[in-house]
C-alpha cells in the first residue's frame, strides 16, 4: 500500500481569510456609505417583557378583576400586548386618563389564570423648570380638582397648613423654590421606612416617617396646599426578576406640563429610565371580587428590541437584513430564535479558543455552546445551578441503571426519560412557587443533557469522580464564556445589523485552524521537560 503525504493548500489558507475580510468590509462599507446604516440605527434599545400572572379560584358566583395597564407617554413605549383570559369576558377601557383591563364572569368555579404581557421601552426624561416662574400660574379647569384635598392627601388639614407655613411656602417668590423646599422636606424631613400598606399624607407627617407612598402623598398635600396641582403616579421599577412590589412617586403641574419627582429614590424633575408608569392618581393597580383565593405576581425580563425609528429608516433599503427579520417574523419564526442562531458561530469561538489555544477538556466538542443556549432562557447563574442539579440527578439514575446492566441505547433512553420527567417536575414546581426562571428549565436542550450525563458517568467510571467533576466544571466555564459572547447586547446588535461580521469570524477560525503552536495546557503538561536542560 502506498503512503503519500498530503500538503495543505498554502495558497488557499492564506488567501481565503483575506477574501472573507475583504467581502465583509466591502459589504459593511457599502451599507454605511450608501444605505445609511449606522450603529445607532441597528443598536437595539433595552426593553422589558412585563408579564402579569393572576391566579384565583372561583366559587360559583360572579368574578371581576381589573388591572391598570401602562400607556404610551413621552418616557415610555408599550408594544406587543397580549392577554390571556381563559373563559372570562375580557375588555379594556379608559377612565380618568388611565387604561384598564377588565375580566368578568357571571359565575365560575375552579381555578383560573389570567395573563397580561407586554414589551415596554422606557427612557430617562429630565425637566427644566424656569427659575423665574411665579408661584401663581394659570390652571385649566379640568385639572382644578387636583388642587383639592382627598382621602389620602389631606392638603387642607390644619397640620398640613401649619407645616406649609413653617416651611415658608406662602412667602416664596418662585414656584421652583417652593417645589425644592417641598422636595427636600420629603427627602430629608421624613425618615424612609419600608411599609407595604397605604400611608396618607397626614399620617406620614405625624409619624415623621413613611415609605414611597407616604412621602409622595405628603409632597402632593404640600403642593396642593401651596397652589400646585399634584397627582400620585403608580408604577414599577424595572429590573429582571419577579416581584409584587410597586412604586409610587408624584407629579406637579408646572407651566402646562406634569413634572415627575421621586422623593424616595431622589429624582428631582426627572423620571429615570427604569421607571414604568402604570397609572395616575389614587387608583388601585388591581381590583377584584373578594373571596376568590387571589394570587398575582409580576415577572420582568430584560431583552433587546429594535428602535422603531431606526427600523423605519432602514426599511426601504434592499440589502436591509432587518427586512429579512420581518420576513421571518411573518413566517412565525421568533426573533429570539433567530438571534440565537445568528450568535451561535460567535459563541463557538469560546469552544475553539478553549480547546485549541488553551487545551481545556470538555464533554463533547460543541456541547458547551449548546448548553449556553439553554442558559439564555434561565439566566447564567440559575442555568449553571439547574444544570448541576440535573446532571447530578441524571448521574444518579445512570449509576442505578448501571447495576441492571442494560444495553447502551435503552440505557440512554432511560436517562433521557428521567431527565425529561425531572425537568417537567422542576417546571411545575417553578410555576407553583412562582419562580418563572425555574419554570423555563423545560427549554433546556434535553438530549444534550442526556449525552452530558452519559459522558460524565463514563469519565467517572474510568478515571474517577474527581476527573468527571473537573471536566464538568470546565465544560460549565466554556459554556459560561460562550453564553457571555452570545448574550452580549452590543455584539448582538452589531451582528444583526451587519451579519457579514460572521465572515470575519470564519477568517479567525481559519487562522486558529492553522495554528500549530502549543496549547497553554501543554506548558503545564511538559513543565518538567521545559525546566531542565535538553538531553
Amino acid at each position, binding site marked *: 500500500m502506498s*503512503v503519500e503525504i*498530503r500538503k495543505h493548500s498554502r495558497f488557499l489558507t492564506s488567501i481565503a481569510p483575506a477574501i472573507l475580510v475583504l467581502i465583509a468590509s466591502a459589504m459593511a462599507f457599502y451599507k454605511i456609505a450608501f444605505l445609511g446604516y449606522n450603529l445607532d440605527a441597528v443598536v437595539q434599545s433595552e426593553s422589558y417583557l412585563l408579564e402579569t400572572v393572576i391566579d384565583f379560584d372561583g366559587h360559583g358566583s360572579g368574578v371581576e378583576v381589573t388591572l391598570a395597564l401602562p400607556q404610551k407617554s413621552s418616557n415610555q413605549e408599550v408594544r406587543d400586548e397580549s392577554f390571556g383570559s381563559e373563559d372570562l369576558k375580557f375588555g379594556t377601557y379608559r377612565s380618568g386618563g388611565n387604561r384598564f383591563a377588565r375580566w368578568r364572569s357571571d359565575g365560575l368555579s375552579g381555578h383560573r389564570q389570567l395573563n397580561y404581557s407586554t414589551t415596554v421601552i422606557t427612557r430617562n426624561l429630565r425637566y427644566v423648570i424656569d427659575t423665574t416662574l411665579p408661584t401663581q400660574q394659570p390652571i385649566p379647569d379640568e385639572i382644578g380638582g387636583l388642587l383639592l384635598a382627598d382621602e389620602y392627601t389631606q392638603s387642607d388639614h390644619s397640620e398640613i397648613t401649619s407645616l406649609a407655613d413653617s416651611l415658608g411656602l406662602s412667602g416664596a417668590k418662585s414656584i421652583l423654590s417652593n417645589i425644592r423646599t417641598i422636595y427636600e422636606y420629603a427627602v430629608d424631613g421624613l425618615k424612609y421606612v419600608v411599609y407595604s400598606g397605604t400611608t396618607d399624607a397626614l399620617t406620614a407627617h405625624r409619624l415623621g416617617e413613611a415609605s414611597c407612598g407616604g412621602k409622595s402623598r405628603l409632597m402632593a398635600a404640600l403642593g396642593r396646599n401651596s397652589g400646585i396641582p399634584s397627582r400620585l403616579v403608580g408604577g414599577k421599577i424595572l429590573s429582571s426578576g419577579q416581584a409584587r412590589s410597586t412604586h409610587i412617586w408624584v407629579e406637579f403641574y408646572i407651566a402646562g406640563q406634569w413634572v415627575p419627582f421621586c422623593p424616595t429614590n431622589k429624582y428631582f424633575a426627572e423620571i429615570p429610565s427604569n421607571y414604568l408608569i402604570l397609572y395616575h392618581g389614587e387608583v388601585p393597580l388591581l381590583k377584584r371580587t373578594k373571596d376568590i383565593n387571589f394570587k398575582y405576581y409580576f415577572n420582568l425580563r430584560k431583552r433587546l428590541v429594535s428602535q422603531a425609528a431606526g427600523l423605519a429608516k432602514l426599511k426601504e433599503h434592499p440589502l436591509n437584513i432587518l427586512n429579512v427579520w420581518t420576513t421571518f417574523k411573518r413566517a412565525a419564526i421568533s426573533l429570539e430564535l433567530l438571534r440565537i442562531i445568528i450568535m451561535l458561530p460567535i459563541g463557538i469561538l469560546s469552544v475553539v479558543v478553549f480547546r485549541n489555544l488553551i487545551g481545556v477538556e470538555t464533554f463533547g466538542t460543541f456541547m458547551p455552546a449548546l448548553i449556553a443556549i439553554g442558559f439564555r432562557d434561565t439566566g447564567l447563574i440559575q442555568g449553571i445551578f439547574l444544570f448541576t442539579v440535573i446532571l447530578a440527578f441524571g448521574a444518579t439514575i445512570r449509576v442505578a441503571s448501571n447495576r441492571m446492566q442494560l444495553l447502551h441505547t435503552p440505557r440512554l433512553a432511560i436517562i433521557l426519560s428521567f431527565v425529561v420527567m425531572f425537568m417537567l417536575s422542576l417546571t411545575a414546581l417553578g410555576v407553583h412557587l412562582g419562580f418563572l426562571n425555574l419554570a423555563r428549565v423545560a427549554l433546556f436542550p434535553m438530549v444534550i443533557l442526556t449525552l452530558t450525563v452519559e459522558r460524565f458517568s463514563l469519565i467517572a467510571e474510568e478515571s474517577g469522580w474527581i476527573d468527571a467533576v473537573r471536566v464538568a466544571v470546565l465544560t460549565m466555564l466554556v459554556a459560561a464564556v460562550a453564553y457571555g459572547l452570545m448574550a452580549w447586547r452590543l455584539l448582538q446588535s452589531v451582528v444583526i445589523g451587519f451579519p457579514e461580521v460572521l465572515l470575519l469570524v470564519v477568517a479567525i477560525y481559519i487562522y486558529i485552524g492553522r495554528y500549530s*503552536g502549543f*496549547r497553554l495546557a*501543554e506548558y503545564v503538561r511538559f513543565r518538567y521537560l521545559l*525546566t531542565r536542560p*535538553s538531553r
Partner: protein
Amino acid sequence: MNFARIKRMLPSAKGLLGINARNLNYIYTHNRRACFPNIDDKLRCKNLLNRHGIPTPKTLGVIDGPRTLINWQAYLDGISEFVIKPSRGFGGEGIMIVTREEREFTNSTGPISTDDLEFHIMQILNGAFSIDNRSDTAFFEEKLINEPAISELISTEAGGVADIRLICQHHRPVMAMLRLPTRASAGKANLHQGGLGVGIDLATGRTNGGSSRNRIIKKHPETGIDLAGHTIPYWSEIIEYGSQISEIVGLGYVGVDFVCDANQGPMVLEVNARPGLNIQIANQTGLRSVLK
C-alpha cells in the same frame, strides 16, 4: 530571568511536539482517512499484519452474529486464560481479561457468571464500545505473558501486560517507550491511568529513565528498581517489524504497540493513528527534533 533563558525554555526550543502541530503537520498530512479502517478494526488489522508475516496474538474466536453468540463457549475449549475485545473499540474500552477454571470464570473484579460474560459480548456487538457506536464484532484473543526480562520491572501485585510503543514515520522508527502497568493503574499500561512510561534508546534497545503522569522519575515508585539500563528483549525484531507497519496499513505516522510474549516473542497488539505525546516525557526528548 533574561530573555535568552526564557527562549531556551520555550517548548519549540526543546524540540517538543504539541497536539496542534502533531495534528496539522503529521496526522493530517501523513494519515489518509480512507486507511483508518485498516487499524480501527482490530481483526482487519491483525489479518493485514499476519499476511505480511508480522505476528499478532492468536484469535481464539470471532463473534459476529446470533449463531456465533449462541456457541461462544465452544471457542474456549481447553483455554484457561483469554481476553474479550471489541474489534472496533477505542481507548481500551470493553476489553476484559478472563481466567477460567472448569466452568467458573473470573475477571479483574472477581468471579463472573456466564450470563454476565454473554451480556458483555452482547454489549460489544451492540456497539457500546465501538468507536462510532455502530454495531461491532467481538473476539477472543489469547492472553499474552510478559517476557521475564520485562516482568522483573513490574511490581508483582500490579499484574497486567507491559507493552512497547514505537512511533514510526513511514518506515523509520523515531521514538520508543516501554509502558509498565502499576498497582495505581490497576494492571493497565495506560499512562493517563497511572502506568509508567520508560524511554528506550532506539539504537541499543536499552531503557534510559522514566516518567509517571507528567513527571520525570529515575526509580520505579512501587519497586524502587532503577528504570534505566535494562535491555528490551527482541529489540532488533521490534525495530524490523515496526519499520514495515506504516506501509502495510497505509498510514505515514503511526504508534505501534508491541508485547514481548514469554513464549512467542514480540507481537503487535495494535496500531494507533494518533499516538500520544507523553512519550516525549518518558524519553526527555522532543518528537519535533527526530521527525522529518
